[in-house]
């Protein structure tokens, strides 16, 4: 097909240019705007018989309306795919950055993908042992899940993501790959990711749009990454972990574009289609019937002002299958990872844990920990008013339970990789410090089975902290007292 070139731009407004007298252009088609220094990629976002509106990824700075030319390529944005993409680094528009030359392949895919038929999905049930007690027991990650990390600036979300990627019991396996897309991130963060993952020998595909790269490019970057992930998972049968950071930068780019287009804004100036647009990214995770691979998706976003009701985390939470929420308060107290369990959630865990998956006591133990830790917050609030000494015995037991929980359970070393059986046993020892009447979520049967007499769980409601400090109880019960019934994968 002969490509037509048009000379002259009629209107420039922010990242958008208007061209007139351009028949035969399709909606969403790629455009090359040829300026003095070379070609800039763009996309037709509105087409009519005599005019086209083009969004230019690299921005419009320096474009001269009279001399600029435009070439329509007759295809949407595409990425060339072959097994050779493994180990490569690309920029935000899928162009190689590592100097190893372009990917040559006949297989080219539209970066927008196509929606998965819900009928063709397989409901994800395979548990991933991340090695973090808080995640594994309380918000279990399932292979094929989309589970975002809601963070704030300055919190260790990147380190958490790297540790999950390297401990996920999949690393090192032939058919495991990480696709990482940095969207508007700092150069140092990108470098930290690359070096720590490639040092561990992970199959890595990297897309990066750094903080000083063109803003509008960011709209395309996650789509390149996800298209590459789909190829690795569903064509090559690999288990792919996609990490995209920072979704907030992506949404800001979307907002900037929307404002330039003169669209009616909805909350906080974000476009009304923010939900649909984010869904077109997040919903690309999953497991497909008849395919070996899977896409597990860990998007990272920084909540502006740590506000979880901001449209970016809010709309994300409505689409993703749960969220891991990091807390500045826990971080300040030196807890790593600073995961706040109460607002965190894994929607898929209910079907991926328990008998036949992790261990039969997992569902009730996790529900009980939530109930008790939520009670701890109430007691803490009360203690702030009346003072700790004025609390009843039961309330005091809750406070020390809460402290233990944060200090020894949520908190763990930066290279500590706990097995799920180990994490569950720790849970029981923590719960044993509370009066038995507090265990409303655990069946009578399980209480008898799992609460060992030597764990001093006192049926009369006299808390263990009276009889023996909770940490001695922890020392007394040896770590491997219970046979680990969770079979290693």
């Amino acid at each position: 097909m002969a490509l037509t070139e048009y000379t002259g731009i009629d209107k420039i407004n922010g990242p958008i240019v208007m061209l007139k007298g351009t028949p035969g252009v399709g909606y969403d088609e790629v455009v090359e705007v040829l300026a003095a220094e070379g070609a800039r990629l763009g996309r037709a976002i509105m087409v009519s018989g005599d005019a086209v509106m083009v969004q230019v990824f690299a921005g419009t700075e320096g474009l001269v309306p009279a001399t600029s030319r435009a070439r329509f390529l007759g295809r949407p944005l595409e990425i060339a795919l072959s097994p050779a993409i493994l180990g490569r680094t690309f920029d935000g528009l899928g162009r190689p950055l590592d100097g190893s030359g372009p990917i040559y392949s006949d297989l080219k895919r539209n970066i927008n993908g196509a929606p998965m038929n819900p009928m063709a999905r397989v409901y994800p049930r395979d548990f991933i042992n991340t090695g973090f007690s808080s995640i594994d027991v309380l918000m279990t990650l399932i292979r094929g899940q989309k589970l975002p990390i809601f963070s704030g600036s300055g919190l260790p979300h990147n380190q958490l993501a790297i540790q999950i990627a390297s401990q996920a019991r999949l690393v090192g396996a032939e058919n495991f790959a990480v696709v990482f897309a940095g969207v508007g991130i700092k150069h140092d963060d990108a470098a930290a990711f690359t070096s720590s993952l490639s040092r561990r020998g992970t199959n890595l595909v990297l897309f990066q749009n750094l903080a000083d790269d063109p803003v509008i490019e960011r709209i395309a970057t996650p789509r390149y990454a996800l298209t590459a992930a789909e190829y690795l998972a569903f064509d090559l049968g690999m288990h792919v972990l996609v990490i995209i950071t920072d979704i907030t930068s992506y949404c800001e780019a979307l907002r900037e574009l929307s404002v330039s287009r003169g669209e009616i804004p909805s909350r906080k100036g974000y476009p009304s289609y923010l939900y649909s647009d984010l869904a077109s990214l997040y919903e690309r995770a999953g497991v497909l019937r008849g395919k070996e691979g899977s896409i597990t998706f860990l998007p990272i976003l920084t909540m502006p002002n740590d506000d979880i009701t901001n449209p970016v985390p809010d709309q994300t939470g409505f689409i993703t299958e749960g969220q891991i929420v990091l807390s500045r308060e826990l971080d300040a107290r030196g807890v790593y990872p600073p995961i706040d369990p109460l607002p965190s959630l894994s929607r898929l865990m209910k079907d991926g844990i328990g008998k036949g998956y992790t261990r039969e006591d997992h569902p009730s133990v996790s529900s009980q920990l939530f109930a008790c830790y939520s009670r701890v917050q109430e007691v803490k609030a009360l203690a702030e008013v009346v003072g700790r000494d004025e609390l009843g015995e039961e309330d005091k037991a809750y406070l020390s339970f809460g402290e233990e929980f944060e200090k020894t359970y949520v908190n763990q070393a930066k290279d500590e990789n706990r097995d799920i059986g180990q994490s569950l046993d720790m849970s029981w020892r923590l719960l044993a410090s509370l009066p038995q009447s507090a265990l409303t979520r655990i069946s009578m049967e399980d209480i008898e089975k799992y609460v060992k007499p030597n764990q001093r769980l006192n049926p009369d409601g006299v808390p263990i902290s009276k009889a023996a400090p909770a940490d001695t109880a922890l020392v007394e019960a040896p770590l491997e007292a219970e046979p680990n019934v969770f079979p290693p994968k």
Partner: protein
Amino acid sequence: MDEKIGKEEKLGSILMINGPVVRAAGLSRFAMRELVQVGELGLTGEILQMDGDEGVIQVYEDTTGIQPGEPVKGLGRPLSVCLGPGLIGHIIDGIGRPLDRLMEKEGGFLSRGTRLDPIDMDRSWEVTPSCKVGDAVSSGMTIASVKETDLIINRVVAPLGVEGEVEYVAAPGFCKTSEPVARVRGTDGKLTSVMMYHYWPVRTPRPYRERLLPDEPLITGQRVIDGLFPISKGGVAAIPGGFGTGKTVTQHQLAKWSDAKVVVYIGCGERGNEMTQVLEEFPSLEDPYSKKPLMQRTILIANTSNMPVAAREASIYTGITIAEYYRDMGYDVAMMADSTSRWAEALRELSGRLGEIPAEEGFPAYLATRLAEFYERAGKVRTFGDKTASISVIGAVSPPGGDFTEPVTRHTKRFIRCFWALDASLAHARHFPAISWMDSYSEYAEEVRDWYHRNVDSSWAALRDEARSILAEDDVVQQTIRLMGEDVLPDSQRLIALTASLLKNGYLQQNSFSDDSFCPPVKGLTILKLILDFHNQARKLVAAGCPLSLIRKMKELMELTHVRELPAGDAAGFESLGKRIRERLEKIGAERLAHEEEEGN
């Protein structure tokens, strides 16, 4: 399909494409709201605005690559869904295409321009005629019945406006969907073929003879709903809640356990995996009433959040039209729409692209009207076939930031009568269902009271009132506790807190992954009685000066929190616990009395 409906082909031509909104010329002979095929690919669309020769079309599929100048073809009818046997047990998309057969045709990802009817025209069904040649027929009369699943007999009724005499009727036995079941000679001499299927425009409500009062409860098997905030068959309820509060789990629970005969579940702009979960789980779950797989009464409509937004707007109408179709056969239908906010947002997005002037938060000014029209299609009715049937609608609402004052929640509240508010702090403590007992309400409680008193227990209303008043009192008591601690309270108020905690942990909470997932009303009421009986007896003791600490220590209380784990049929188990609690309290009272006498001496 039915391309031949228009006698002569109408053709327009595309002028402009802006996402799902397309402007075209040459539409003067097209009808407003007519269904069209857009572009060479034949994408499905609908005409939204007309201006002289030009019109605006909303396209239900992705418009990438479509160019100005490509054709627009009219199909001669508004957006319709094909109704007939073979809907139940299947999953269709927002505009009525069968996703299972689409997958067979084109694989795991949805492509564009493929059109299929939701029902298979070549499939044979076992037909039992219920009239004979020469019989007089009027609209709504059952002509034949088709065994759709083990649970659902699909009744083929005479279409509206057909009055006359049966001239032909199919013999009992197997018959293809595409073959006529009967022919009726009308009083005007016109011959009408009665088919198993027909098309119905989704935005037009199907008529019925008369509206009835919704005085029978829809049993949901969820204690907090059946016991405190009941919904009627034919009622409308909303479940609002921020993300992670359990809207979808609650909707799934209702789809599983409600005693409706047919369940229509619409995944509107939600997660793909949620639909997959229903598809995998329901065939293996047993309906507690008929003991057959749940899938045999369920229809799924999926427009997941990454499927085209215009079809999201249509999915709600497709769903309610299917619900009306089964209602007209005399079934009680329950429809779950998860989530109506996504539908409202689809309206907003399309409205924005049409350049309409927005009202609140960018939503179009007609948002309230659309919500009202939709919810009013629910109700208990007498059909033209003279059957009593109903559609209950339960709509999830997803307010941004969990803020219930936003437009969709606010307008929805005007048109529903049952409000199950989900509470984030309950959800954080994993108290499920996280339905707040303070913010929720049901206007149906009065209407269903007589039914409960006749069919379950005559103390239903009294127990409900008592439980609610204890929970309300507890709300105040808890505020004091949060400020000053429990120790400053008199025992009478601490007893309120104790009983409320028994109610919360032992009654209101329900584990959807255990056998307690479905709780018949009798079991719920038995638990409630146990807790309230304990409360009343303990209250007398406390009033007589017995310290609460003695009562609190009794080990039967632990059992009372766990009593929901007993199977529903274990009447002896419940009775024995009640007896032991009574005796223990009597003993505590007697010991206390003896102790006092001793001190008195």
